[in-house]
Structure formats: C-alpha cells, structure tokens
C-alpha cells in the first residue's frame, strides 16, 4: 500500500544506510551526539523530522508502529506522523504500548514499562544540553570531548540559590553511562527515571540540528543534582480523575471558566487500559457506559 514514487518509508536506501551508520555510532558511544546529514523531510523542521528519519531508517515491513505526542496517540501531530508511515511504509500501527515494536514519541515516555523487543524513538528539538550556558557549537563540542561539565551544575546551583530548588521541570539534563551529559528531549522530569537501565533501545533524532544520539538497553541514566538537593519528580495530590491512577503523569484540563480543573493521565493508552480493567476515578462514568455511548 506504499504510495508510488517513493521508496519504502520515504527515504532512499543510501540515506537510510547513512542514518543507520550514525545510529550504530550513537549506540556505541551512549549519549554522544553524532552529526548526520539530515535530509529535508516533507514535514516541517521542529515537527519531528529527526524522529521520523530515525524511524524511517530502522522500521521494517513487519514492525508495528505507535506514535504519541504529549503521551496521546490522537494529537494532531501524532496522527500526521502515523499516517506518514502508513502511507509510505504500509506498516501496522497501534495505540497499545505493549503491542508496538517501535514507538515514536514527542515529550513523553509511556507509563507501561518497555521491553527488550521495543525501540523508543524520541523527537528532539535542541539536542545540546550545554546550549543553556554556551551558544557556540565549536565550544560545546570541546566541552563534551573534555568532560568539562562544571557549568551544568552552575545552572542548577543558580536555581537553588535564587529559588530554593532546581526549577528545571522538563528536558532535565542527565549523565549517560557515567560519561556524556545528554538532553533527554523535552520529556517531563517525571519520565527521567524510566530512562535508567531501560530494557528497550532509546534513539534520539534532532532533524533541524542534524544530530542523532542513543541510550543502549540497560544503560545508566542519572539526572544531575546535588547531594543535599536530590533529583525529584513531580507529584500530584490526587490521582487521575478518570482512571484513579496515582503513578502516572497528569495533564490539567480546564473544564469551565471559573477555575474548574480536572487532572487526567497524559498517557491515553495507559488511562484507557486501566478503565477497561475496571479502575475508576472520581469524575469517570463506568467504562462500559462510555464505550456504549460511542
């Protein structure tokens, strides 16, 4: 069902080979940003062109693809990217985390633990974690090469000095395999611990900045912190209003113009699974009723 005129998964085989070489190098040097000759994609830069190129380079005809944006399968950009691969590669797609062999994500890691049989592909806008403190590529590459990372802690120090806590809440820098400092892409810091020793292969693609990096399975990923100000993740006082989950990342939905809010799981697949299994939140009708109403 692949659309005529384009190769399987859009990219030509030579380009795929070039990207695979970059991926192999990235896996061999965990957390190191490998420059690659990113191609112009038929989607705009900043909208997942890096993730799409990585996915296109590793996807095979028998893969099952899941695409999420903000944790949800049905956000417009996730839909658009999923359709792109349906069209150009004709692969099966799914919204179920466990059923996917390949997951492309923007801004979240699924709540359900991933397995060795899966690959997680992140879309990355700014791959350089040192960019906050040093704008120049020629300098940041040197800092990585020489492990000159003192300046990262300067930034965290400043947060504590001025605000009493580390305020970085997403794209929270990590140290991979005890060597490279890496930007985890703008996932909430809530997701950082999931990266550590994850059984799945994690690949990161930055299309506009033309960098690929990786965290191989079972690799240590440590969030930067101070001994007396340890890394901590977001918490909420109540669970998900729909499924009652207290262990998931919650989104805030505004429900009226009088300050009314409800908190719901950002991972829509996770929330749905829980409801199907009979878990209820304070604002949820029983699952069978909502399904019947469809």
């Amino acid at each position: 069902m692949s659309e005529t005129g384009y190769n399987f998964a859009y990219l030509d085989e030579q380009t795929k080979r070039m990207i695979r070489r970059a991926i192999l190098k990235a896996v061999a040097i965990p957390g190191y940003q490998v420059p690659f000759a990113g191609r112009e994609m038929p989607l705009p830069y900043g909208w997942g062109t890096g993730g799409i190129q990585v996915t296109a380079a590793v996807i095979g005809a028998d893969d099952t693809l899941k695409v999420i944006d903000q944790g949800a399968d049905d956000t417009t950009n996730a839909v658009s990217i999923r359709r792109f691969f349906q069209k150009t590669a004709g692969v099966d797609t799914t919204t179920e985390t466990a059923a996917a062999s390949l997951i492309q994500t923007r801004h979240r890691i699924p709540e359900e633990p991933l397995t060795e049989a899966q690959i997680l592909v992140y879309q990355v806008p700014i791959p350089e974690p040192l960019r906050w403190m040093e704008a120049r590529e020629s300098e940041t590459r040197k800092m990585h090469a020489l492990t000159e990372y003192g300046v990262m802690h300067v930034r965290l120090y400043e947060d504590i000095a001025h605000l009493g806590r580390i305020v970085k809440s997403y794209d929270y820098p990590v140290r991979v395999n005890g060597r490279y400092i890496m930007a985890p892409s703008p996932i909430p810091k809530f997701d950082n611990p999931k990266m550590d020793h994850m059984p799945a292969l994690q690949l990161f693609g930055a299309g506009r900045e033309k960098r690929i990096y990786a965290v191989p399975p079972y690799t240590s990923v440590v969030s930067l912190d101070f001994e007396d100000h340890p890394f901590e993740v977001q918490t909420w006082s109540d669970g998900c209003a729909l499924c009652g989950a207290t262990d998931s990342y919650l989104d805030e939905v505004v429900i009226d113009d009088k300050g009314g809010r409800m908190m719901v799981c950002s991972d829509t697949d996770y929330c749905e699974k829980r409801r199907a299994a009979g878990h209820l939140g304070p604002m949820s009708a029983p699952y069978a009723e909502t399904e019947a109403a469809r």
Partner: protein
Amino acid sequence: MYVAVKGGEKAIDNAHALLAEERRGDPAVPELSIAQIKEQMTLAVDRVMSEGSLYDADLAALALKQARGDAVEAIFLLRAYRTTLPRFAASLPVDTAKMTINRRISATFKDLPGGQVLGPTFDYTHRLLDFSLMADAAEAPRAAAAPADDAAMPRVVDILNHEGLIEADSAPADAEPGDLTREPLTFPAGRDLRLQNLARGDEGFVLALAYSSQRGFGNNHPFAGEIRLGGVEVEIVPEELGFPIVIGEAELTECHMITQFTGSKTQPPQFTRGYGLTFGRNERKAMAMAIVDRSLRAGEFDEERRFPAQDEEFVLGHSDNVEASGFLQHLKLPHYVDFQGELVNVRALRAEAETVR
C-alpha cells in the same frame, strides 16, 4: 477543539479540504496555470529555485501555486522534493566569464571592455502603480532587439587580477567542494560551505545582515565591482565518455563585491572579494550575499570579529528559512506536558512565597 481525544484524524482531513478550497479561491475566476506563473511571476519562481536549490522553473511554479504564493512554503516544498532525487552527476564549474549577458554593470569603472549593459531592471522605473495593468493588455509589450554584440565581456575581478590589485581566488582549483546537503555542517565551515549556505539562505535574512554591516555593524565598505546576469552553459563529464558535454543552459545572477584591505605585516594592501550567486534573476540577493561572504571572511584578514554579520556560527546557523520557519512554527504544537511541569513548579514556588509572607 484542536486536540479532541478522538478527533485528530478528522480534524486534519477537514483542515486539508479547507486549505484546498481556499487555495483555489473563487471558482468564477479562471484557475492560474503553471505556465502563467512561470512566465509572469518570474522573480518569485527564481527565488524559489535559488533557496529551494533546485533549478526547475516548472516545479518552482507548481510549488508557488500549491503554496498560494507563499515563497517560504514553496521553497520548503521544493526542498522536500529535491532531497529524494538521485544524483547522476556533478556539473563542472560554470564559467560566468563566458556568460551570454542580459545585464552587466560595474560601479567601479565608468567604462570597461564589453561596456555597461543596463538590461531589464527596476532600477530606473519610477515606482508608480501602473493602472493600465489592471486590465488585460490588448498587445504584449515588446522591446527593440539590441544588435547582437559579440564583444568579449571579461569579469571586472579578472581585469583587476592582471594588475595583482585583487586577491587571487582563495580556493585551489582542484579542491573538491563540500556538499551542505549531503554532509552535516560543522564549524568552522570552509568558504565553500559558507557560500552554499548563503545561496540557500533566506533572502530577507541575508539582506538584513548585509545592510547591518553597511551601517557599521561590521567592517565592510564594499564597491559593486560587477553584477552580471545571463545564461551559462552547464556541463557534465559522463563517466563513459570522459569528456564534457553540455546538458543545458542556466540563467544566473552573479555579483562581485570589492572591499579594500589595508594590508598586514605579511600581506601588501590589496582589494578583497565577496561573492554572490543566485539562480535566475535576483540582484538584491546576490549583492547581499557577496557582502555577507566578505564579512564572514573577517578572520582571514585579521579583522576584529564583533558583529553578527561576521559571526559564522550565527549567520550559517540561522540563515535557512525552512529550518527557521519550522522551528518557530512548532510552537503551535501542543506543549501541555511541559507546561504542566511548569504549572506544578510555579504553584509550588508561589505557595512557598505565601508561607514566607
């Protein structure tokens, strides 16, 4: 709702249908043809070819039609198409000294071999709206054909070169240029990659940088040595033949800016070059590019690098409008996961501030 829980697919379909309808506009008005755009919107087509880096007027016209006249969107369409094309060959360097000239002016010499050729230019039009264009003209305007002039038109820089007054071309003739579209750009970039980047760079951005350096945010007092516009032959050497064959003609605009260099302990004073080249007709871009090229060479001449137009990482990193437009507009994508993180933060900080009070 733009992110309904199950509405994404339908919303996208509807948006595409609306877009197609709006592109067409009032069906009572005849549809624009690609030929019309190609023939009558030539400068827009030329810009899209240059920054889209694909010399194909039909496809550029198609891109402009599809993009409803939005040049940056059309450039993006052409780039995304171009990147999938196989490469059969690389052309030999084109020889602009042998250009069939449509226009050729020099601001540095009153007269020169081959003479000044004004050619088709807006320069001396009074910018008065021509209301006669509101109606369809009965007859197409015609210009008197100039007598064929076979006089040689050497390039001004070559004339200066005979006296040693201007620096020699910096790249050795046998140096293999890099390819921005096939290798990642790393810094410091060579002049080959810089010129490629500027040629593909956004016209507005390059223009503004050149302007900034003219106004003192840079150290550049250029003379327009020569601007020439016309056709050149494009040659390739097929492997099986082993000698060059002409595969077609391309229309180009070329600009040499000449800037004085006061000399250093190791070099005598001489003139230095800035180079600009575009597909089709685009003097403004070619001139701006030549000024920015020279600005970026500050390091070669031990000039102090203080301003944006002299900063390679700044200029090359931000010149591409396909990259810039995409990244800027990605802010339209949902960011509510990250925003939620910030909400949690700000609420906690505010609560702390309350207790202190």
